[in-house]
Structure formats: C-alpha cells, structure tokens
C-alpha cells in the first residue's frame, strides 16, 4: 500500500456526477479510484460513498451493482468512511423520499423531507453550526465554514451523532459521526476551499488509521 497517496475507493454505482468527488480527493493527495471492484474496495484505506438524486434510485443502484455489502464490510472494519449527500442519507434506516425502500441502516434514524415553507431543494451555500468541534473531519472548519448544499431531505437522528447542522431556518443535520463513519449532507467536493479542507481532514484520518493498523 502506498503510504504517500493512500488508496481511497469512491464507490461507482452508476449514478450522476461521481467524478467530482474523486477529483477532490486526488487534489488533496489521495490515490482516489472510482470503482465497483469489491477487491479494490476491500484493499482501500478509506471509502467514499457519494450520491446525488433520488434515495430510492440510489439504493436500487447500489444493490444492483452489488456494492452494498462491500460498503457495509468497509464500515464494519472501522476504516474511515465518508458518505456524501444521498450517500449520507443511504446510511440511515429509511427515507420519506422512498417509503418501503430500506436504507443501509448503519446509522439510526429516518431521512425526512425539509419542513414546509422553505424553498426545496435547498440549493445554496450555507454555514455550518458546529456542535462537536472535536470531530476530526471538521478540524479548522469550526468557525462557520460555508458549504454547498443541494437536497430536499435530511436525516433525523439522535443528537449524539450530529456533529454539525445548518440553519434553514430550523437546524438541519449537516454532518454526522459514528466512530470513523462520517457523513455530510453538503458536497465537500463542490464547496471550494472549505470543502478542500474537509477532504484533507478525511485523508488525514485515513493516514492515521493506516498507522494504527
């Protein structure tokens, strides 16, 4: 394994724009591969599950490409894992966007439609309100960093897992943490320098985890 450029598997399950996530990780020094190869995913030092679009479509695609189990195995192994946008939502038990379609269920809670009376989707930059500044993913980003959101649904989960929220105009879950399983409702790969910092933090966690093993 190349210690200088850790192998990060970006799961390619055939949905829209996955390439930006790969490029963002490459930019900060990862050997980031868009892949559907379970062997490569098992070898990767870190795994990223991007996602755009419809929860049901993404779950169906993840299962159709047989990538759900490799993803679950990676999470189970304790290697750093990052879910992005719908890739975050898929970690939960279910979503109001696709009733009856089970999520991966590695995070407790349900993904719910944003409250009535707001523009849906939230398609804009918004500031993070950080609840747990010790989260390594948010190192250097605790002072109201601006991130790019595009979503109509967001996870409703135990406060204990919520690291940061955004105000829209009620608090919306923006970052969750459960051990080294992290997830962001926004798109770090589209959030300029703040997003770059988050990608660097994820890669730092990947390197630290490699040293532990």
């Amino acid at each position, binding site marked *: 394994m190349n210690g200088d450029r850790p192998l990060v598997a970006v799961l390619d399950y055939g949905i829209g724009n996955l390439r930006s996530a790969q490029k963002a990780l490459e930019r900060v020094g990862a050997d980031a591969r868009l892949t559907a190869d379970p062997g490569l995913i098992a070898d990767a030092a870190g795994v990223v599950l991007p996602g*755009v679009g419809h929860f049901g479509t993404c779950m169906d695609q993840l299962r159709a490409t047989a990538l759900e189990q490799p993803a679950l195995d990676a999470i189970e192994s304790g290697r750093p894992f990052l879910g992005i946008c719908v890739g975050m939502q898929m970690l939960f038990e279910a979503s109001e966007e696709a009733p009856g379609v089970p999520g991966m269920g590695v995070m407790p809670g349900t993904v719910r439609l944003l409250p009535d009376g707001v523009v849906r989707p939230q398609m804009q930059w918004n*500031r993070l309100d950080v609840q747990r500044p010790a989260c390594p993913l948010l190192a250097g980003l605790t002072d109201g960093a601006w991130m790019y959101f595009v979503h109509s649904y967001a996870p409703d989960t135990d406060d204990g897992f919520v690291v940061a929220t955004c105000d*829209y105009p009620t608090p919306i879950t923006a970052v969750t943490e459960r051990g080294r399983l992290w997830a962001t409702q926004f798109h770090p790969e589209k959030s300029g320098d703040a997003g770059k910092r988050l990608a660097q933090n994820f890669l730092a966690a990947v390197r630290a985890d490699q040293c532990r093993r």
Partner: protein
Amino acid sequence: MKTVRVIPCLDVDDGRVVKGVSFVGLRDAGDPVELAAAYDRQGADEIVFLDITASAHDRDTIIELARHTAEEVFIPFTIGGGIRSVDDARALLRAGADKVSVNSAAVARPELVREIAREFGTQCVVVSVDAKSNGAGADGSTTWNVYVKGGREDTGIDALGWVRQVAELGAGEILLTSMDADGTKVGFDLELTRTVVDAVEIPVVASGGVGTLQHLVDGALIANADAVLAASIFHFGEHTIADAKRALLDAGVAVRPHVD
C-alpha cells in the same frame, strides 16, 4: 438562512468563450476552464456554461469541457445548450457537470424533464426559460410567453403555466431569462422574476439585463430571486464577483462572503 448565489455565465462556441472577455492575468481569455477557475477564485457560487452552437459534432467538445472543468473548478457548474436526450445529460453528468440545463428540447417534449429527473434526480435538472412580455392584458395584468431560438420564436406558451408544469415534471431549478431585458443593461425584469418566484417552490435564477451591481441587489431584494446571473459586467472586468458580494451584503442580502 437563505443565501443568494452569484453566478457568472459563459457563452461557449466550439469549446471557446464567445463574448469578449477582458480579465487581467489570464493566459488565455478564451479558455472557458481558465475563466471558470478565475471566477471560482473570485468567490463565484456557481458557474453556468451555455453552449451556443450545440451542433452534433460539438457534443464531444462540450463533454471535454465538463471533464476539464471538473478537474480545475471545485464549485458547482451547469452546462446548457443542445441537450436533447437522457443520453446527452448522462454524458455531461458523468464527465463531472453538476447540472444540465434544458430549454427548447423541453419545450418540444416536456417529458424530457421528467426523464432526466427520474434518472439522475431533480437537483441536476435546470429548465432554462426565455420569457418575453405580451404587455398588459384587458385586466391590466402582464403576461409573458415562452420564446425559443434565442428569443426569435414565440411558442405561444404562457410562461407562468410553463414554469409550473416543469416544476411538476421534476425541474430542480428555473433559469429565467427576460428576452426584453437581455442585453439591455437596464436590469432584470423584476415583475416577471417576482411572479415566477411566487409561482413555484423550486429555486429561481434571475437572468438578463444586468448592467450594474444595484441590478443584482434588486433581483435579490425586490424580485426575491434565489440566485442572480450575469455575464458582461463580470467578463469585461467592470466588477469582480467580490464587488457583487460586497454590494449584496451592504444591502442586507445574505450571501457567502468572499474570502481573500
């Protein structure tokens, strides 16, 4: 909190920026990727590329543009022009575009909006609407029709009915250009913009007519647009994106502030 996005728009023909661009410090002012990266550095919130030729042979060129942009630009970008099918949309999204904008193809076959939304999600479907005023009707209220072919052809479709229809079909955003205001530098058609903002739940990008920074402020404050788009005031170096952000902030509009 709602924050208003500031979006520069680049017209592209066969892979090159069309309208004159006079930026300092660019090696190649005709290179859309280099320009987009410069706007990213200035604090642009998104970039829109409009492929104005969109001929058949041009598809590969525009896909290459998406691919290169995804390597250099780390804010969202939209590509519009010549997208007629789910396959056209797929190629651009797979190459790294975040959204595709459809216009005349959606007018010709509205189901296209639903098809792209179903396949890739509503968030990536922008419906670009070119609207022109019919003047005040008998009851005194203004109506607007949808135009295609760069404002030359009246489709006879009512713009308000059209934006409601495409929102229902799965559009994630409306890019609304006033064909009356476009190119005039007299400011957005605020009445049109406000009417469309009130008619749909999805975000509306105001476009057409920006000549001053105050016009951007008016689009946000008076028309309540979710985003403001402009081309020439940024391209010719009259104002930077940072100037626009400052003007909006000074007027009390929430934006992502520019960080030097």
